[in-house]
């Protein structure tokens, strides 16, 4: 595996999205390889969530019909063959999409079947996912009665139960306590070995501890992209990651003003 170039599991080119007159995403292009964890970093309102929504087919780019715009998942065109491409996707939106009246086991079984898993394989996947996300104890409980941290974990569980090639997580550690955050980060790291993970966050510590690569977003553009190790060296090793991030975004804002 190591001597051949890892395959590209997600490739998005020239995504543009407008809401009314405001362009939220400008010509955004992204690539993700198998076995890579990509962190999408940015201030509030930078367009992270909108980008992830487009990558998962919940929102169409404005230029979806034009040939310059494309989203490919494992080589399948998401915009033209959505049902085929989405089988390789796992998505945790900002608010976990939970049916609160179902039990955890029922909900996860439904999520797995929904992504086209055979019912014979579901039982095994369910046990594995429950164990991975630390949900064994609450399998029979109704989701609505769980605490927010557990609900968030159920949200992550539904995104990975069918072991998709591309896992998209929108702020996965929101609402978790420090111990749980560490657990989830270890889990994401683990997932990153075999799958591709793209996660959005505004926590720099998260980027530092789990991401192989960072893309910084501002005003709907990717303004900086590098491996997280390189980013740390950006300030000659003297600055913390936080300072580097602030410097990059402020420089960019100043450049924009100058133009």
């Amino acid at each position, binding site marked *: 595996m190591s001597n051949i170039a890892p395959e590209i599991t997600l490739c998005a080119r020239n995504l543009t999205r407008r809401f009314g007159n405001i362009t939220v995403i400008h010509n955004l292009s992204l690539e993700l390889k198998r076995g890579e964890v990509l962190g999408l970093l940015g201030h509030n309102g930078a367009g992270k969530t909108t980008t992830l929504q487009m990558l998962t087919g919940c929102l169409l780019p404005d230029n979806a019909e034009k040939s310059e715009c494309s989203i490919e998942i494992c080589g399948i065109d998401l915009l033209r063959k959505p049902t*085929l491409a989405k089988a390789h996707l796992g998505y945790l939106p900002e608010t976990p999409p939970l049916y609160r009246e179902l039990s955890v086991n029922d909900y996860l079984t439904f999520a797995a079947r929904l992504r*086209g898993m055979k019912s014979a394989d579901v039982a095994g996947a369910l046990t594995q996912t429950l164990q991975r996300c630390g949900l064994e104890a609450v399998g029979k409980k109704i989701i609505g009665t769980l605490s927010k941290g557990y609900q968030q974990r159920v949200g992550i569980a539904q995104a990975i139960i069918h072991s998709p090639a591309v896992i998209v997580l929108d702020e996965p550690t929101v609402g978790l306590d420090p111990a749980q955050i560490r657990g989830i980060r270890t889990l994401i790291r683990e997932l990153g070995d075999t799958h591709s993970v793209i996660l959005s966050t505004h926590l720099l510590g998260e980027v530092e501890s789990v991401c192989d690569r960072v893309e910084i977003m501002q005003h709907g553009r990717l303004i900086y992209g590098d491996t997280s190790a390189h980013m740390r060296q950006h300030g000659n090793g003297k600055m913390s990651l936080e300072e580097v991030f602030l410097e990059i975004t402020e420089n960019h804002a100043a450049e924009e003003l100058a133009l």
Partner: protein
Amino acid sequence: MIRLLALRELRSLFSMPSTWFILALLQFILAWFFLARVEAFLEIQPQLAQLANPPGVTTTVAAPMFNTVALLLMMLVPMFTMRLIAEERRNQTLTLLLSAPLSGLHIVLGKFIGLLTFLVVLVTGVPLMLYTLALGTQLDHGLLLSNMLGLLLLTASYIALGLYISALTTQPIIAAIGALAVLLGLWLADIGAVAENSPWHAISPLNHFQNFNNGLLDSSDAAFFVLFTTVFLLLTIQRLHNNRRYG
């Protein structure tokens, strides 16, 4: 896939106490109505017997009963359809369906069939009660079948309309009021229009049910229901697609 979505819909419905409450209450009301009709029939039976061609028990008990169920469903269906899409949107669970490998057709048909199954279960009590009459008398099976078919088609058209209105909004309550307003409006326009050939009669589902209610199978009535249902299901699919387009 459609079956999976329909089953999920049913499971969610039956996990809510309010569903069981409505189920129980409706059986009670229907049983009450049924017994009242049977009692009335027994009272006037001697007079009916003197007529040359007396109406039977099916005409005097079953037909009015189905008519009442049709009216009751008009009020009940919006209470169930309101949740279908509006609530998924409000709870953000719609994202799960939109990011899953499903087409709009799957989502819409899954929800439609799920709720239709539930409502069929809800009103099964009616034919069962009516068939208990077969213990003591001869029933007109043709009339009963035509009524059941009509009621099924009518329910399907109500659901399709409610589903579409539910897809237009994020608030289940607005979806319920909207669907109820449209259904009541169609009904009132129908009974309010005096002229025999008024176009209002043609677009009212309840008016098309009348022939089924009288035991008359008219293909144009059946075609109306199929068209009505299809149009609103297609509109819902389009609306879900626009959801992706306009956010």
